Structure formats: structure tokens, C-alpha cells
């Protein structure tokens, strides 16, 4: 049996990689992918704890998180398509009409 701390650490590593991606990259799609990565890090933590605590709440929460991620992805990509309709632009720094 793998100790729970291993899953906790894996979650933390994935979360930090995702957060670093959000803060370092400028391509909106890659930022969105990094956010997905963060949500998955959370899910590993939830499911790991669910097993550790012998409680199902963590798995149910994990399913809710996946569904929320689906909605977020759909709306986020729709915003990108709307932005892209009249010009080619996905780098967030090119979005410069407002100060970033």
C-alpha cells in the first residue's frame, strides 16, 4: 500500500507545475491547460484522501470537479474563439487595449 503522503506530494508537484505555467506562459490556450493541470492536482489529492479516510466524499467531489472543468473549458474556449474571430491573437500580452 502506497502511503497517502506520496499522493499528497504528487498533487502538490502537479499543482505547482500548473501554477508556474499560468504565471509564466503567455499563450492563452497553454494557460488554460495549466489550469486544467491544477484542477487535476486537486483531484489526485481528493481521491487519495478519499481512500485514506475510507470516505466517498472525496471521489464524489472529484467527479464534480471534472464536470466543472468541462464547463470552464467550454466557456473559456468560446471566449478565445470570439476573440479570434476578427484577428489572430491568443497571446495574453497582445491583449493590450486594457492594461494587463
Amino acid at each position, binding site marked *: 500500500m502506497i502511503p497517502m503522503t506520496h499522493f499528497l506530494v504528487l498533487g502538490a508537484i502537479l499543482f505547482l507545475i500548473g501554477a508556474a505555467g*499560468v504565471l509564466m506562459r503567455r499563450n492563452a490556450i497553454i494557460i488554460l491547460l495549466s489550469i486544467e493541470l491544477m484542477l487535476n492536482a486537486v483531484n489526485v489529492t481528493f481521491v487519495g484522501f478519499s481512500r485514506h479516510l475510507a470516505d466517498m466524499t472525496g471521489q464524489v467531489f472529484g467527479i464534480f470537479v471534472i464536470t466543472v472543468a468541462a464547463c470552464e473549458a467550454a466557456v473559456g474556449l468560446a471566449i478565445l474563439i470570439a476573440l479570434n474571430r476578427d484577428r489572430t491573437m491568443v497571446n495574453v500580452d497582445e491583449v493590450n487595449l486594457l492594461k494587463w
Partner: protein
Amino acid sequence: MLEVVIPDIALSLALPEIGLAILVCAVLIIDLFVSLENKSRVGVVAFVGVVILGLVAFGQWGEGARTTFSGFYVVDNLSVFVKVCVLLCTAISILLLLQYAKVEKINYGELYAMLLFSVFGMLVMASGNDLITIYLGLETMSISIYVLVAFMRHDPLSREAGLKYFLMGAFASGVLLYGMALTYGFTGTTSIRGIAAAFSGEGGAAIAQNPVMIFGLILLVAGFGFKLALAPFHMWLPDAYTGAPTPITGFMSVAVKFATVAALMRILFVAFPAMADRWNALLWALTAFTLVWGNVAAIAQTSLKRMLAYSSIGHAGYVLMGVVVSMTVIDGKVTFTDIGISAVAFYLLAYLFTNLGAFGMLILVCRDGYRGDNIEDWKGIGQAHPWAGMAFVVFLLSLGGIPPTAGFVGKLYLFAAAVQTEYYWLAAIGLVMSAVSMYYYGRMIMVMYMENRGESQEVMSFSSAPSLFFALVVLVVATLLLGIFPGSFLDAAKGTVAGFI
């Protein structure tokens, strides 16, 4: 086989949410049968529905705390107060939208549907008695608002505001969620009461000292800080507020604060009293920073909408100040004072009328392709349009906290709470920043009354739409009423405490 036990569900408690879900479907269906020119009718349907639901929610006031849906959902005075206020804010925002949507050519039925969807999320959040419910409510609210911010697709400002708000918001909910996951792991439950029980039970003291749990709490606070745009998590706000359609800006500046602060108070006060010293210190620092940053940065703005955006950061600071000063330690025991919680409730109520009014003034001057966004545009309005000028002065004075307006009573009550629980430094910072804020609100009044219009300046004309006029009259009257006769509203604010802690 696992036995299926159907829990006891009192559906009548969730009537506002159920009604709202039906209303959204009705709005979307009616939208199909209304021609493009008459989409305002869809808005009228939404308005009537929201008013009725507001009355339904009001009927639940004062009946103590009741939970249902296996403890996932709670109706107490705090949640009813927040629901009624959010629905009131929505009704007024729809009135403001009716005219604006026509001018900006975004008069689609989905506009009202998305607005109602976000209200659904807020109501669920206000009644959320479990981290899962609160999270889902928060996401429903946020995702609908991302869409609303980007709704003016023909306007690059709006689309880009939508993208930035979306990316920051999604990042923030990831952070918040990680905090929730760690909380779940250490307490073994996601229920608000269950978390509190885990902390007060056997080994609870060790959990409260665990560094990873503290890290989780910081993430939770940071996530909510992003949603409330507390400095230093405020960087998305000026852009999102400036780019969004103006009535939506007014709506989100008020309604989101109501729902988020309610959920934050429920989590911190009910679930985390055992770690109160930690989150209190954290929030203290955030509050002080937010107050200073929001008010100082507002001085430098030349765009009226952007100035109001920064000022709303400052006001979030005041609301949070109420949350901080609610906690005090009496005889070594963490206690939450009634005066602090009711100060938050009253301040939010005052802010509802005032801020919607200020954004309503901006909508009043919107014409095709002209937004009256520059402070310079407002030169000499006081002489040219005395009534509109007076209304704007009332809102600005209330934002600054000058009697006899709602904002004054709100701030007075807040500072009284801060002094009573001995948060002298916070009260002092709040007072100084209140004076600073009078500088930029006062400058606006000076521009309107003391300066003359330039020769070449475009003539500002005010819309005469009856819905807009009605909404602004209501807002002015309410702002003055709360300032002159605050009694019964203060009682309502005090009533929010009942059954909450």
C-alpha cells in the same frame, strides 16, 4: 446490496432556487418567440420573476436556521438577507440593462438568462452549508459572469476583459479548490459543521497546528481574496470592470460581494473558529493593503468607470474590515460579535444602492458610440442638468461616507464595531482612507459644478428611458432613506446574526 435511503428533503426551503431555475428556462423559451426588436420583453419577464422570487425569499426571514438536503443546504437569516439583497440588486440591474442593451446592441434573451444563471449560483452559495455546495455555487456564478463580461463581442475591450477575467477567475478557483481538498483531507469531511466538529473533537488541536492545514487555509483565503478582488489579488478587476457592459459592472460589483462574503463568513466563522487567530491576522493584512491600494490608485484615474472600479476595491476592503473586526477574544475564547457581522450586512446594503446608482449615472449618458467615460466629459453638468447632477452628488457623497447618506451610516457603524472590538489600527486606516476617497469623489463633484464646459466639448444628453429613470429614483431615495432613517434597516442587519454562529 447497498440500501437506498432517500433523505428527508424539504423542497419548500429551496423555493427561491427552484423558482429561479424555472424562470431561466421560461426566459430561454420565451426568447424563441420574441422578435429581435422586442427582446426587452424578455427582460421584463425576468424582472417580474425576480421581484416575485425576492418576495418568496423574504417570506423565509426570521424562522431560525433550518437545514435540508442531508445538511448541504441551510436557510438562516444571513442567507435570506443575502438572497433578498441579491435579488433586489438583480431587479435593479435588469432595469438598468433594458436601455443599455438597446444602445449597445446586445439586447438578446440570453443576456437576461445568463444574468439569472449567475444569480442562481449566488443563491446556492448563500445557502451552501458544505464546501461542495459553496464551490458549485461559486462556479455557476463565476462562469455566467465570464460570459456576461465578454457579452459585447463587437467591442474588443469587452472580449479582452472577458478573457482576462476568465483566466484569473479559473486560476483562483483552482487555488480555492486546493484549499478545500486539504481541508477535507485533514478534517475528513466537507460539511461546514462537520469541519468545526473535527476541530473541536479529539486531536482537533493538532490539526489546527498542522502546517499543511495552515497552508490549505491560506489557499482558501487567497481564493476568496481573488474573487473579492482584495489587493494584492485585484489585478484583474480594473480591466474586467472597465470592459464589461456597465450594468453588468454594477451588478457584479455588488451581487458577487454579497454572495462571496456570505460564503466566506460561513466558512471562516462556523467551520474555522479553531484557526481564528491565523485567518484573522491574514485578513487583517489583506484588509489594510486593500483599503490603501484601492483608494490611492483611484486618485490617478481619468476614466470615470475605471475610477469606480478602483473605488470598489476600496469598498471591498471596508466590507472585509467588518469581517475582521467581528472576531474578538473574550477570556481566551474566540467570539464573534453581533455588531461586526451586522456592520458587514448593513455596509453591503448601503453599497448596493450607492454603487448601482453611480453606475446607473454612467448608463444614463450612454448613446450610440458614446459612453461619457472620461471625467472631463462631466464638466458643468451640475448647471446643465441640475437633477441628474444632484442625483450623482448623492451617490458620490454616499460612496465617500458623508451624511446624510447610506454610506455614512454604514461607515459609522463599521468604525464603531472596529473600536468596540479594539481594532484601533484598522479603524484608523479606514478613516484615513475614507478621507483620501473624498479627494477623488470630491474632485468629481468639483468637475460637475465648478468647471465650465469647453467650447468644443460634445453635448451630453441624458437618456429618458422610463425604466432607467425609475431605477435611479428608487436608488436615490433608498440611499437617502438609509442615511436618514437607518433604524429598521439596522434591525434587519442585526437580525442576520440570529442562528448563524
